[in-house]
């Protein structure tokens, strides 16, 4: 078997793509979640009345019990860092300009974890954090700018 060394050999390979675009659906529970984030800056959760698990962002059904989730509740965007990473490279492997602080946050009152960015000096597991929201919100997960230390 041969390993290809010369990436510019036009006879050996050529460029192409799979041309596709998508129009993604926010969904029944997603619509409620983003309305709540946009209008009042809260994180809408949904609780399973059988197993009491609280999902945030809210979902339509409990994967554990397979029941519809009907108990919606607005949670304050406040919690503690469950785990974090500081990312130094772009997706193509090149260095990032400013490291991204990726984090999983345990929102107070929820059982599932919430994925977002941090903007803190020195991230630590267990650090108490709160969301910093955009003033003009569009109904997107990026309406939360990041989480900062309380």
């Amino acid at each position, binding site marked *: *078997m041969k*390993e*290809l060394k010369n990436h510019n050999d036009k006879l050996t*390979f050529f460029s192409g793509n799979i041309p596709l675009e998508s129009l993604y659906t926010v969904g029944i529970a997603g619509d409620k979640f983003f309305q709540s984030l946009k209008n009042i800056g809260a994180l809408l959760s949904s609780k399973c009345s059988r197993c009491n698990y609280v999902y945030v962002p809210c979902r339509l059904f409990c994967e554990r019990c397979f029941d519809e989730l009907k108990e919606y509740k607005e949670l304050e965007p406040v919690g503690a860092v469950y785990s*974090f990473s500081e990312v130094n490279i772009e997706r193509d492997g090149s260095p990032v300009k400013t490291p991204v602080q*990726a984090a999983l946050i345990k929102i107070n009152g929820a059982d599932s974890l919430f994925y977002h960015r941090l903007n803190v000096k020195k991230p630590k597991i267990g650090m108490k954090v709160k969301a910093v929201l955009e003033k003009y919100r569009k109904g997107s997960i990026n309406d939360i700018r990041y989480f900062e230390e309380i």
Partner: protein
Amino acid sequence: MKGKAAIVSAGITKFVRRAKETPKELAWYAAKMALDNAGLSLDEVDAVIHGTAPDAFDGVHQKAEYLSDASGAFNKPYIRCYVGGGTGVMAPIYGWYYVASGIFDTVLVVCEEKMSSCRPHPQAAFLTIFDHTTERPLGPNLLWIFALEMNRYMQVNKIKLEDIAMVSVKNKSNAKNHPSALLGSEVTLKDIMESEVLAWPVHRLMVSPISDGAAAIIITNEEKAKKITDKPVWIQGAGWCLDTAFWTGRDLCYPQYVEYAAKMAYKMAGIKNPAKEISIAEPYDPFAYKELHHLEGLQLAPKGKAAELLMDGHFDKNGNLPSSPSGGLLGVGNPIAAAGMMKVCELFWQLRHEASGRQVPGNPKRGVAQAWGDLMQVGTVIVTGVDKP
């Protein structure tokens, strides 16, 4: 287990950064090698299984159809197996139940991946596996979420980064003796620790390299196996399990789904004490910490204690329970589905004393191979051994 099924032959290509061969050509090399090693012609194969991960890697939609002729599927029953990174061990499990059920006598299982086609980087193929409204706009990729998992695993179990780095040292050294290896070399702890931090705490040399490659095995029933070889490697147990598809719903410290999959396989194999009854482990190691994480899930180390056993030499090639004697994904390379299959091939060669410079000492009777994947929620486990189940 009802019918008996044995692995009677294996084939593998070199794992390289960018192969000159097309995906089809890679698959054909591995499949042909497995047939030749068994002394079989394609006519003697009753059905074909192809394992391959996302279509996006090769840049071909319906990749299994594209790869079917190269896998020997012309005029035969054919199926694709696809559970992300778990595919390389799940595809042999498909092969096992095709034969154990009595439907087919002889099946060919082929796994292929050509990751170098994917631009700018195969990681880009994983950007679209996250929730499209609540996560994707934040731009996470697999490397980021594994960094989160590794950090949590270290913090909760109080594991030192240096201890995790020793998995890379061990596997890259083991891979020196693997003819397919992309990254076999003697690297020091210092080399690993001083390699670039990609996403804290993940360093570059704690990550397996993206690669192109293919691997294949032939599984037959007892009667056919006897005709082909006097050293069949029996499939004694198989197990698979899913965790939640929402990665934000897991504790990240312990792979419960691997435990469930392993227990299913051990029960089938009649194994009561896996840490004592298994001679060789090939846990999935795309990242250094995952080998430890998975050894715990496989019940081969107590929860949170795999790093301690590693530091005691327990998992060395000459240790009590050699782990990744192949060199693993960290050393041999990680063409996803083919990498998992490489682990199944390694058990085949080790149990037949055909692993040359990688051969573990003594008389290994039984091995376990495991793979993991999708959005890190799939566990697939196979137990193989020299004794007929």
